[in-house]
């Protein structure tokens, strides 16, 4: 077995007994080898990196679709794409970027980093985590196989009825969309449960909630949003599918159904979705700002409360996507107010970051550049957001390129730029090597310039009346020049992304070796080797302050007494992180993959026959029987009565003592 790099701190502290224990941990937590191993692995780091790579591949595919659209629109009356293919391309582009790229990749970073930041050895539900990945993968493959078979969905990424209903979209295209939604939402929901379980129950002793890094807060808040928002879209897409497949009438006005109902259900998910993508990015930014300004965050409490406020307000905005529907004016003005109100917590956060950066001796590296780029772009997107929140203006520019410009400013500015910053920031932790700074600066500059060239002109195009989702336009409209400019911008943006890909491949082989903590950062993942060992922490640390590594005493306080012959980790209390259990986590297993196949059978065959659900139920139950009775070996089940947890009380006393 290859020698893993060891953390300096670990290495220095080792006695012979420690080394024996580490060898044992390596054996117990070893990742299963081979192809079967790839399917059964439960290591959160491996699963997260798979998510990252898969989501990035979908990002590239979505980007290629965007490029096709920009080629088509570069000049008037172009015949590069047919109208029908253009419909599929913009639908698959939007669907890919929202469901197969943005949400999964944000979850992925959480799955990788949350256990490391809270100081534990794996996520709370490792097998659920694995299941979530495979369900996501199958959903993504379903969409693209259908697309390549000319059955790609073509009713827009939100598939409004009646266009997407049985009357106007015969065939299987929209069914593919609806089932893909089920796959990705199941996966997102699994990820949310995994993250919340880990944050609430697996934190290292001493990491009470008010010492939680802002990154983890952001992941926690996002996960709760997922839990309350995603069921809406799963229900919407299920009702749509049942209207199409078994002749129900939820959205059929002729039989008492309602098309606006679909919009309500979709946007009750769709608006929080924006924040589900955006709030994790806020977490990346906070991590990066703290590290590169080498300062504690200004207004920690205000930041946490802003995150929570954003999440709550995010559920009260959905109707501002529906201002062009005949809803009561009074109701609309409520949503205008809520839409404007959300600028307050966002503003609080922006000002807290500025206050943290202000006057600090900045360490201007690529991650920070992306954050600064985020501030510029996101403020722009926020401003057009305030404009769109006003009903009269919204009615004028509804479904024009102005909206396209706004949403890309918010989503690319608010999520993709911080995400690239996060890639540069955490890449050394994932691979052990730093990305090139020089290529990184080029990457940033090209993306920043390219992005603004693509999307800034779209504001004007929208004001000039160019509707979104048209496959071509006439020369007399006068939209040609700005469209050409946008297409040139798209090329520059694409070259910027290409720089990133080249940088990744280059750094994998020739990047500077990072060491444990190349940035001098404060969170616990940087106390580990890069990449971290399979078991993460040799000894679970005891956290002494809100900035775990900066607040650490010379002699690091640690937890002892966990077994090194089982996959054991510490379960602690929700608020104060007082040790409660020595919990054995489940190890590698084939059952989650088999379960994901049963899920796949249910939804994919379900497009063709309702019997698929009965078969799926039987398959699922069969898998659960195997899962439940099949491998009791992973756990040395403890049949004894548990001893009184007297050490927990001692630990609480210790944590509250002066010493910490």
């Amino acid at each position, binding site marked *: 077995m290859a020698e893993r790099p060891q953390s300096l701190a670990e290495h220095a502290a080792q006695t012979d007994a420690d080394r024996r224990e580490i060898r044992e941990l390596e054996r117990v937590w070893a990742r299963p080898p081979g192809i079967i191993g790839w399917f059964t692995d439960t290591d959160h780091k491996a699963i997260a990196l798979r998510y990252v790579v898969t989501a990035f591949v979908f990002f590239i595919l979505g980007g290629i679709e965007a490029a096709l659209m920009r080629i088509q629109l570069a000049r008037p009356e172009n015949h590069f794409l047919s109208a029908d293919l253009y419909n599929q391309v913009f639908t698959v582009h939007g669907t890919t970027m929202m469901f197969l790229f943005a949400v999964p990749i944000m979850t992925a970073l959480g799955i990788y980093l949350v256990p490391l930041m809270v100081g534990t050895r794996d996520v709370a539900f490792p097998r659920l985590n694995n299941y979530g990945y495979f369900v996501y993968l199958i959903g993504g493959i379903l969409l693209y196989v259908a697309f390549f078979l000319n059955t790609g969905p073509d009713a827009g990424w939100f598939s409004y009825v009646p266009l997407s209903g049985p009357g106007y979209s015969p065939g299987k295209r929209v069914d593919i969309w609806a089932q893909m939604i089920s796959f990705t939402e199941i996966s997102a929901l699994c990820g949310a449960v995994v993250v919340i379980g880990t944050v609430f129950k697996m934190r290292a002793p001493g990491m009470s909630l008010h010492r939680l890094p802002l990154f983890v807060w952001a992941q926690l808040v996002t996960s709760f949003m997922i839990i309350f928002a995603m069921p809406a879209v799963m229900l919407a897409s299920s009702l749509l599918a049942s209207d199409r497949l078994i002749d129900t009438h939820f959205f059929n006005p002729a039989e008492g159904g309602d098309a606006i109902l679909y919009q309500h259900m979709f946007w009750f998910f769709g608006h929080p979705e924006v924040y589900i993508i955006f709030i994790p990015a806020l977490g990346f930014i906070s991590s990066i700002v703290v590290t590169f300004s080498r300062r504690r965050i200004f207004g920690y409490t205000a930041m946490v409360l802003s995150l929570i406020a954003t999440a709550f307000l995010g559920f009260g905005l959905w109707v501002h996507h529906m201002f062009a529907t005949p809803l009561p004016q009074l109701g609309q003005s409520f949503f205008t107010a809520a839409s404007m109100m959300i600028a307050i917590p966002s503003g609080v956060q922006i000002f807290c970051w500025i206050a943290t950066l202000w006057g600090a001796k900045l360490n201007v590296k690529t991650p920070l550049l992306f954050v600064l780029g985020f501030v510029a772009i996101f403020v722009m997107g926020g401003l057009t957001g305030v404009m769109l929140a006003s009903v009269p203006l919204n009615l004028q520019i509804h479904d024009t390129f102005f909206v396209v410009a706004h949403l890309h400013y918010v989503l690319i500015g608010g999520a993709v730029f911080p995400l690239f910053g996060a890639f540069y920031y955490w890449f050394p932790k994932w691979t052990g090597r730093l990305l090139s700074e020089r290529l990184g600066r080029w990457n940033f500059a090209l993306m920043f310039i390219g992005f603004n060239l693509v999307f800034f002109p779209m504001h004007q195009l929208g004001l000039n009346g160019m509707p979104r989702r048209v496959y071509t336009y006439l020369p007399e409209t006068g939209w040609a020049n700005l469209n050409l400019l946008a297409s040139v911008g798209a090329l520059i943006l694409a070259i910027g992304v290409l720089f990133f890909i080249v940088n990744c491949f280059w750094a994998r082989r020739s990047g500077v070796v990072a060491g444990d903590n190349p940035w001098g950062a404060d969170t616990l993942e940087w106390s580990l080797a890069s990449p971290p060992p399979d078991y993460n922490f040799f000894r679970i640390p005891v956290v002494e302050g809100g900035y775990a590594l900066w607040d650490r005493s010379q002699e690091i306080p640690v937890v002892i007494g966990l077994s090194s012959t089982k996959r054991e980790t510490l379960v602690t209390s929700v608020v104060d992180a007082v040790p409660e259990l*020595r919990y054995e986590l489940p190890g590698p297993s084939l059952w989650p993959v088999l379960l994901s196949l049963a899920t796949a059978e249910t939804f994919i065959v379900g497009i063709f026959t309702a019997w698929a659900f009965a078969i799926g139920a039987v398959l699922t139950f069969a898998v659960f029987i195997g899962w439940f009775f099949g491998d009791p070996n992973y756990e040395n089940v403890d049949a004894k009565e548990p001893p009184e947890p007297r050490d927990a009380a001692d630990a609480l006393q210790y944590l509250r003592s002066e010493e910490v």
Partner: protein
Amino acid sequence: MNTRPVIDVSDLPHHGFDTVDTIWWGNNLLLAIETSMFAILIATYFYLRQNISPWPPPLAQLTAPFSPLPGLGFGTANALVLLLSCLVMMWVDLSARRGSQGATQRGLIICLVFAFIAIILRSFEFRAVKFRWDSNAYGSVVWFILGMHMLHLITLTCETVLLTGWALTRDFDMKHRVDITALAVYWYWVAGIWMVLYAVVYWAPRFS
């Protein structure tokens, strides 16, 4: 850099009940997802109700039954069965906590009988709705509510079968005792959410 051990956890137990164990959180978070789903489904029901007046719409045929309202019998019986089953499940819950294996086994078997009765009653409930799912939006939403809850009844039954199987044939270990208490939470939830859905499906149309 050196480490100093400050907390020794070797005496801590492996499992605990309720909020101590991660399984409680996982279970409750999944139930939170399903609760959101039913909340939106109920909102859908009342949203569609605005479109159809009277609600439910009159029946097309002029033979008995004349009232389009859903028949109360099977739904009410099911509500009672589910409430009663909660008492048995509470007994199972307490027995699992106490560690009395025999009581848990007996209780689980009784619960399974209740679960099967509930599923059978449910299949009659579909017939008590005077419309098919493809008749109109009223029929669609009522069938969907009943169906989604039926899905939970089936899931609950399957989970109970698994745990009963374990309790009868394997060790009555702490891990699975905790699992049984998590099953109990799910059971209370399935019964509890039915009280709400029962009110929506059977009583909301009677007060309009």
